[in-house]
């Protein structure tokens, strides 16, 4: 939850600091999280191409998991994965 008071916010909620959407953790919206099974993953990076929120982590051309601070859990990666290596799991459920 934000803690700034009304009087300390810019007029009309205007954004006066460029690029501060990086600090907006859209991952809090997620109801299902993607999980990857690296046994099945072929590192084709189809998930990285399709992810609308740039939340697939890649290092040295290898798929390394998800950036959960920004992943909204849309499930496009799981739907597109040709190796069926990504599963969507309910948040808050073990």
């Amino acid at each position, binding site marked *: 939850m934000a803690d700034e008071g009304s009087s300390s916010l810019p007029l*009309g*909620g205007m954004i*006066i600091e460029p690029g501060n959407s990086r600090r907006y953790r859209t991952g809090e919206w997620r109801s299902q999280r993607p999980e990857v099974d690296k046994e099945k993953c072929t590192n084709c990076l189809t998930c990285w191409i399709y992810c609308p929120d740039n939340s697939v982590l890649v290092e040295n051309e290898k798929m390394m998991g998800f950036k959960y601070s920004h992943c909204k859990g849309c499930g496009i990666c799981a739907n597109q994965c040709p190796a069926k290596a990504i599963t969507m799991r309910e948040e808050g459920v073990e």
Partner: protein
Amino acid sequence: MSKPIAVNGDTAIAMAWKQINPDVVAAYPITPQTIIVEAYSDYVADGLVDTEYICAESEHSALSICVGSSAAGARVATATASAGLAFMWEMLYVSASMRTPIVMAVANRTLSGPINIHCDHSDAMGARDSGWLQIFGENVQEAYDNTLMAFRIAENMKVRLPIMTCLDGFIITHALERFEPLEDEKAKAFVGPYQPVRPLLDVKSPTTYGPIAMPEYYYEIKYQLVTAMANAMDVARQVMAEYGELTGRRYDLVEGYRTEDAEYLMVAMGSTAGTVRFVVDQLRAEGKKVGAVKVRLFRPFPTEDLVALLRGKKAVAVLDRAMSPGTGAPLYMDVVEAASRIGSPPRISNYIYGLGGRDIMPEQLSSVFGEIIEGRGERVNYLGVRK
């Protein structure tokens, strides 16, 4: 010295805008406002102003253009009425919350249906909760004076809210009256140059206007309007005092007439306020202790000023040129709320009148005074309706 001339209310507003020379005017014509933008487009075509004049394809677009222009750093004016104002509905709230100090003339006309082009205040009353300031004029002179003052109030750094300068459709917009404009230089000096706040065109200070605000922020952004409205009360008072010094025409948020020793008051807004004072004079000549109250600033509502005027009175009639089917009308509700702060409040009744341009005659107002003096009358009364 400025010379008195005879023009209608719409032309007087266009003349005020011409003196102010806003950067942008975006509008769509609608009766009874059309003369304003028609006259102004003549000034543009004749090169008398250098305003960017944009003919929009609808009122929704017109106000959207105004919002964008204001965010870009422009001083902006527009005008509308009735269905045009209703069509701006979405952008009314957006413009207030985005804190774009647009000045908009509203030539008060009723809302359909039945379709009708004549005066009542139902259009402006529908917008009373949008976060716009609302100021009402009684005649051509006040329509002009309110316009000059409106720019100062809206653009004040403690306010930064859009403002509606309301004038009664046809009664003020189209009636020829004698009025005294200020000399151009005096008007320009009074209004002063425009000071933008973080204009979009300032590329060195990039700004996003009107971003989404989720539940964590929406309430706080809305609360800013409450603060700005409270500030607007003092700012309006100061601007009116300064304008009084300049012109000798002394205005106030609420204006009482023969109220001091009065026992019975009648509250009104717009052109009817003059008729009320006429009736007060008539009844005073008969020895009746009556007075008139004119509300000039409707948003923010000057509750404390009303409390001071209502204290100690026996009964009050509030005239509303609008209705709220199923309960009392907006001005009545605000006056009752003000009176609720008084220990022994006066008896207050609501009189709905003049809907769809129905004439209001002095005899009718005399009989309303008669009713409240005798303690008759319902809580909400529909003056002159054929039941």
